[in-house]
Structures are given as C-alpha cells and as structure tokens.
C-alpha cells in the first residue's frame, strides 16, 4: 500500500476517536511526524495507523488512549522513533527541495531586478540557513506538543519560533552586499 493511502486512511479513521482520545493521538502524531523527518516514512506511517487502530479498539472496550498507550506518551514515542531506520535519501531530498525552491526564487528575483551576477556562495549559505531554520521549526513544534498542555501556549510557541526564524532570515538577507563582495573577491582570486 502506498504511503499516501495509509495517511488518507489515518485521516479517515481518526474521526472515530472521541474528543479526549483524539487530542491524545493527534499530539502523538504531530510529535512523531516532526521527529521522523529523516526516517523511513512508509514504516513510520504504517506504525501510526497500527497504533490508531489499536487505540480505537481500546476505546471500543471502554479504555481511554492514555490508559491503553500510557500516561507518558513522549517516552513511548521516543522509544518507537529509535527503532525506525534513518533514511539518507530523505535527508538529500529535503536539502534538494530547499535548495531547489530557494534557487528558483532568488534566480527569478535576480532576473527581474536586472541583477549583476550569480552568487553561488551566497545561495549555498542561505540554503544552509533555511535548512537549519526549517529543522528548528519542526523540533520546536515537536517540543511544544508535549511541553505545554495548554493548546494556546503550544500555538504561541510554534508561531513564535516560526516568526523568529523569519526575522533571522530577513536579517541575514540584509548582509547580502558584504557577502556578495566576499564571493566576488574569492571568485577573482
């Protein structure tokens, strides 16, 4: 079965959970997915569906998700994540995606603004920065899932980190002239 089909089934099946169990499972889902960006996705999604099916069955037998799966889900999920193999391919795919999107945007901006030359050094540095910020965002969302019980605090923390990343990104872009000069210099050297 395709991973996208498994995810679709998960979305459908999740509606069978009651309010409390749904919140429990969705926290688990968010935490798991944010922490397994570079791990085997088919295996991870298969596991998420398997756990969902079992929680639904427990619910049918009058057992809540936390009674069934455990009152400290973070520890359980961390142990689970350790068993899912790392996938180098997905790391390269992620880097490629960020580099691709970023190059496309900066190239089109340069073309539109009658840019002077291509700055590959800067492109790679900024891709690295975007990559780091993306990872930071995912890690913060994962941390917020189990760190705060209150929903609003979770949202505030997640958006706060996203905002900070954006600010860092914009701030870094203003360094362009200096780095431009540096790259050109090394180019002619």
């Amino acid at each position, binding site marked *: *079965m395709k991973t996208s089909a498994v995810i679709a*089934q998960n979305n459908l*099946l999740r509606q069978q959970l009651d309010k409390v169990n749904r919140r429990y499972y969705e926290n688990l889902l968010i935490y798991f997915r944010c922490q397994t960006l570079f791990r085997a996705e088919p295996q991870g999604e*298969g*596991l998420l*569906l*398997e*756990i969902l*099916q*079992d929680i*639904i*069955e*427990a619910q049918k037998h009058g057992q809540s998700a936390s009674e*069934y*799966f*455990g*009152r*400290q*889900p973070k520890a*359980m*999920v961390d*142990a*689970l994540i*350790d*068993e*899912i193999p790392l996938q180098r391919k997905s790391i390269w795919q992620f880097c490629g995606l960020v580099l691709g999107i970023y190059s496309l945007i900066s190239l089109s901006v340069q073309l539109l603004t009658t840019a002077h030359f291509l700055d590959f050094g800067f492109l790679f540095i900024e891709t690295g920065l975007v990559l780091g910020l993306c990872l930071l965002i995912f890690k913060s969302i994962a941390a917020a899932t189990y760190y705060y019980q209150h929903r609003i605090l979770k949202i505030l923390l997640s958006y706060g980190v996203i905002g900070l990343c954006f600010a860092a990104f914009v701030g870094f872009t203003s360094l362009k002239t200096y780095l431009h000069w540096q790259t050109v210099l090394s180019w002619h050297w």
Partner: protein
Amino acid sequence: MTSKVSSQMLKGILSGCILVLLSRETLYGYKISTALMAFGFDEVPMGTIYPLLLSLEKKGFIQSQLQPSENGPDRKYYTLTAAGKAEKKAFIKQWQVLSTNVAQLIKEDVYEDLSSDRTK
C-alpha cells in the same frame, strides 16, 4: 516511573513473553496487549510493546502481514519465524534458570521481612 534498570529488564521479559504468545497464535498489537494484561501485566503501558515488536521484527524473530479486518483498513498481524521459535526456547530456558536462582536468593530476605513485620 520505573528506574532505567527495571525498565530495561521489563523490556527483555516482555519481548520474551511476546514470543511465547505469538508461538501460540497469530496476533495484532491490541490482542497482544490484552493477552499480556490477562497474564497480569496490567501495570505496563502498552505503548511499550510497539518498539519491542519493531525490534523483534528487525531481528527476524517475528514477521508481520497485513490481513483484512472486519471493519476498517487491514490490520498488521504478527507471526513467529523459525528464528523466533529458537529464540523463544532460549528465553524460556534462560528465564527458568533466572527465576529459580532469584527465588532461591531472595527467599531468605522475604522470610526475614515477614518475621520482622510480625515482631513490629
């Protein structure tokens, strides 16, 4: 929360128990946990068994297969492999030796505790 040592110990024991259960019949996650609960492991959060199942599968002791379920999508059923059968035998043997030794060792302690309780 249980200490690290006892949680490690529990993991090993639970893995062995899962092998024993699966040698009797093919089961899926929820059924494994209810079987474990029926045997008295009702204090164990069942989130514990999923990493164990993954690890047992990785080691080749069990294998999983999707089978149609009455309602909803296919379910993952686990069966014991030939290597798993051998591992189960090894676990039982190891457990018997361990439990005899430990029972022997703590017998005196238990007796002392009981008698000190009585004198209180």
